[in-house]
């Protein structure tokens, strides 16, 4: 066990830190769930990409730097330390990108990855349907093969950032006689394809953070298929591993929130019961535990290990921690916790309310925590189905 960074890792951290100090926006951008905010976030992503930092673990040819997973963690730590903007293209960068890396042809990699890195093309994820939520294998949207293209029909829903995205990656039933997870195909579809209609849906905060997407004989070339026809489930599951695991929610995010929570508590400690301090301490401790566990996992992966069902433990842990931290912060803030950012008295309150509303979704998206607990019980503990 060696818990020191190498000289190269320290140099990398310093480089990221310097670049972010010089380039990260001084004031928060508008929410990327507004047209104006989406444009600001795209501009930021373009700048990040010009700096070579859009997706450091990717190979150089696709806009990355060939960084290893440890450097990825370091990058994330610096990114959150700098309080840099949320990633508008996270579905592309963190979910689809790694999947293309694994299943894409060279042509697909060259076509999609660089424009993903620059956020010229922002991606939405089209898995859920009105009747396929937790039961994702119940997907009913279809892809009908016609020569060198597919005709897409049906409906996707809850596609995050679908309102302002350019492309959607989704799963469609290509074999009409198939059942469950067989006969599904993973398809990449431009959202301006004729026959595709996007209807934004306002979320809990009132902004159109996700969208329904309707397909009516939308024509997509076969070369936009990822993996083999009928193999979509397998391809998608590789994304699920990444989503719940390392990429989407690296520990720095929660350490950043934990630090803000500790600072908030310190400012109010004299007025608060000891129990609040104990609860804050538990949260900080849990964020450290998540960090240590991630370093442990990354060390294992570096030595050739794989992420399996334990990604479900991660997902439960971070989503419930995030929610607890925001609940506590609002509790500490008291009546100020009710204030919208536009309230004149909201200065210095921070974005805890926004964060809380978002944290509430954590136990739902990326596979609900009930489903994750089933997975932990069945695949890790080995309980009977």
């Amino acid at each position, binding site marked *: *066990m060696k*818990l020191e960074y190498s000289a190269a890792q320290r140099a990398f951290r310093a480089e990221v830190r310097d670049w972010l100090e010089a380039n990260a926006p001084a004031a928060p951008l508008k929410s990327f769930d507004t047209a104006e905010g989406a444009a600001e976030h795209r501009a930021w992503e373009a700048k990040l990409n010009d700096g070579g930092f859009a997706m450091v673990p990717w190979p150089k040819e696709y806009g990355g730097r060939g960084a290893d997973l440890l450097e990825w963690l370091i990058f994330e730590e610096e990114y959150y330390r700098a309080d840099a903007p949320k990633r508008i293209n996270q579905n592309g960068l963190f979910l689809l990108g790694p999947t293309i890396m694994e299943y894409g042809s060279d042509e697909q990699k060259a076509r999609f990855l660089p424009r993903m890195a620059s956020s010229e093309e922002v991606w939405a994820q089209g898995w859920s349907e009105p009747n396929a939520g937790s039961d994702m294998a119940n997907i009913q949207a279809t892809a009908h093969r016609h020569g060198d293209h597919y005709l897409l029909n049906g409906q996707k829903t809850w596609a995050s950032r679908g309102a302002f995205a350019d492309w959607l990656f989704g799963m469609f039933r290509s074999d009409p006689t198939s059942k469950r997870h067989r006969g599904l195909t993973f398809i990449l579809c431009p959202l301006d394809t004729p026959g595709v209609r996007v209807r934004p849906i306002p979320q809990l905060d009132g902004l159109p953070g996700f969208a329904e997407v309707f397909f009516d004989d939308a024509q997509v070339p076969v070369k936009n298929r990822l993996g083999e026809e009928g193999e979509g489930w397998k391809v998608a599951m590789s994304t699920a591993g990444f989503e719940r695991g390392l990429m989407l929610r690296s520990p720095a995010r929660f*350490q950043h929130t934990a630090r803000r929570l500790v600072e908030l508590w310190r400012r109010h400690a004299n007025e608060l019961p000891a129990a609040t301090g104990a609860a804050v301490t538990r949260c900080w401790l849990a964020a450290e535990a998540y960090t*240590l566990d991630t370093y*442990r996992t990354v060390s294992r992966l570096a030595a050739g290990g794989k992420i399996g069902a334990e990604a479900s433990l991660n997902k439960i842990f971070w989503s419930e921690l995030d929610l607890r931290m925001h609940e506590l912060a609002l509790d500490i803030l008291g009546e100020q916790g009710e204030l919208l950012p536009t309230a004149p008295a909201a200065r210095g309150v921070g974005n805890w309310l926004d964060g809380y509303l978002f944290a509430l979704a954590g136990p739902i998206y990326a596979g609900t925590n009930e489903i994750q607990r089933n997975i932990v019980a069945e695949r890790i*503990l080995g*309980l009977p189905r």
Partner: protein
Amino acid sequence: MDFRFDEEQQLLQSTVRHFLDAECTPAVLRVLWESETARSPELWKKLAALGLTGLLIPEAQGGMGLDETAFVLPLEACGHAGLAEPVVATAAVAAPLLREVAGALADEWLPRIATGDARVAVGHPTLSFVEDAHQADLLLLPRGEDEVHALPRSAVQVSEQPANDPSLRIASVAFDASDNSCVARGKKARALFAATLDRGALASAAQALGVCERLLQLAVSYTSERHQFGQAVGSFQAVKHHLANVKLKLEYARPLVQRAAHSVAKASAQRALHVSMAKHAACEAAVFGAKQTLQCHGAIGYTWEQDLHIFMRRAWSLDHAWGSSSFHLERVRRALLEGAFAIGPGATFQEEQQDD
């Protein structure tokens, strides 16, 4: 940066695990419970032969010359078996304390600990009772917070305090201190006591992980076999989620314990903080595990006959030993409130960086 154990460390764990699976079964523990001392001289000798009692003792004095990072996995294995022998008191706490006291006392006792010929018990100013005083050949005891005294058992009065965990033997110990018995005082003694508390807490935390793992295994195997409503009760989602929640607490306590072991081994400035984080999380997981696995067993788990309670009692006694969950949470809370160290993204391994 490599948060992994090397092959030798993993090998030691599996050796101890296999040994205890065979030699320290619940049936063996139950026999020991009924015995006068609840301790097995044969088992202790065999543990010594494996190197466990001398793990932290320098090679020159007959030990393995390893550190806490190497000890944490074998200790987890001891917890898993519910081992009652004083590996914490003697091997994890007394041995390094003697090593630091040094001099003739260390030269006399360390080789004997390594060979399994001596058991040494340690008291602490924050604790009322001394673990395994009843069997100790030598006791290292506090007078106030500023003096460490070393006395043979014949020179102290041991009054045993029956405990809820029959594997645990604790006692109040009275003695007449003299200049002769004092082996450290003042600043030195306080530093020794601080390190002792951290070592005791770390070793208990590591055992608690093993206990929690064992509780889970017992519950998984029982609920996979017990049928109600025509199906295994382990297939009911309420049962699954109870046990998944235990697994969650266990898996996120583990890296805290491993990291604390590293900090103790390196005498890091954040040693106490890291130990408290670990002890809090590991004992909370084990105590939670006891409650949940009992629930998943139903009435059978509520009996003396079923083995579950061997490990439930272990979970509770380890929680009570060397500072409870809330004692350690409070130590973390204070340090955090004072702003005694950097926090936030990138700060986790800051302390280690200053080393080089």
